């Protein structure tokens, strides 16, 4: 399945400054694997050492959070949009 993965601003530095990439994947896990294989630096920002998605990063298929679907196994259909949505805070740390 051809799907689009949207890379958020804070992580674009680790993905060749791209806003989105087109990938072939049949579920979310495959899409994320293909993404981190293409951009190795992204991996440590998305996954902890034990391979779990970090708790300040959420992944959506279209407008649904995969935590409430089938997580990594959430199937993808042709033309789906996968969004990576990390927590952001633009202010100074006071």
């Amino acid at each position, binding site marked *: 399945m051809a799907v689009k993965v949207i890379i958020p601003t804070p992580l674009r530095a680790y993905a060749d400054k791209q806003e989105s990439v087109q990938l072939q994947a049949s579920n979310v896990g495959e899409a994320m694997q293909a993404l981190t294989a293409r951009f190795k630096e992204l991996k440590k920002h998305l996954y902890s050492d034990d391979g779990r998605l*970090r*708790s300040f990063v959420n992944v959506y298929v279209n407008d649904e959070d995969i935590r409430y679907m089938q997580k990594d196994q959430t199937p993808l259909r042709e033309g789906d949009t996968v*969004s990576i*949505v990390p927590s*952001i805070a*633009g*202010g100074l740390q*006071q």
Partner: protein
Amino acid sequence: MATKSEISTQPAPSSAPVTVSKEEVLRYSRHLIMPEVGMEGQLKLKQAKVLCIGTGGLGAPLGLYLAAAGVGRIGLVDFDTVDFTNLQRQILFSTSDVGRPKIEAASDRLRDLNPEIQIDRFETHLSSENALDILKDYDIVVDGTDNFPTRYLVNDACVLLGKPNVYGSIFRFEGQVTIFGYPDGPCYRCLYPEPPPPGLVPSCAEGGVLGVLPGIVGAIQAAETLKLIVGKGQSLVGRLLLFDALAMRFRELKLRKNPDCPVCGQHPTVTKLIDYVEFCGIRGEEAPAPQLSIPEITPRELKTRLDRGDDLFILDVREPHEYQICNLGGHLIPLGDLSKRVSELDSSREIVAHCRSGKRSAEAVDFLRRAGFRKVLNLKGGILAWSDDVDPSVPKY
């Protein structure tokens, strides 16, 4: 998503009916003539109590629109003073306010805009000790501070007190807006149980914000706050609005209440406020790299050594756009490119690495030492300290 958007505005304490004066009818006439607000809505606004945490980029449009709309009581929390770097986006302040406490400049501006309303000033850091006490008197809390410790503090305090929390967050040219803290809606921890560790927070190289972005996001927070008060429309409860100013595109994602949420779930583990600075692992804005022994050189020592003709190679690990602002004539390799461009460096020469404040260059020095470079020093305090101690003609940013 159908979520009820009426808030439980506390009834007016006195028995006297709340009315609007003739002057107020004129001031609010553009509200009064639209049915969605009308006299009923305007009276609700007059009786409403909203707490704005922070008077900066997000707090500016928020405070201005809430005051202009006639929100009867507005609390402001800020401890900071106005500086020149604020003026690019914090439109509550003018050049003549630089050096003044923000709370003073902000309340003067809002009082000038609308003398009919009450403004409460809290010139303090919001903390676990004072948060519940400050928040408890208000109907709605709007978080305009945008840093992780305050984000989690405000979230937890709002959940514990049962107050809606109008959330906005910004990064460069992207924003997020929603409403947390509704009994049947999600909270910030449902979305993000934990903050990113400091090492993964984007450094100052990737920071910065388009000046108008907090204006747009803060104005959306204001709109949501006004809608909650008058009880009209569909609120953002359960929806995360994403805004990208570069693409000029809005997107919307569904938010769900997480039954396992540590603060608002079925079996909460967070039942009182905690130490949020510790929780977020932040040891100050420019936390030193965890590696201990990074060899350093002060700007004055560097100047002395350059003046006496020592052979030093200056390595600038900032981004090209920062180099354009000011530089020490060093060889530019951004930190992120260092591993693939390390062959440009001569390990037999003594290298002094620098960045803006010394944090990224400490990482660069650590990396180079691990890669076998023996003579590498970090310029302590970066180009900012160089400007302070050696050459004040170098602009600070």
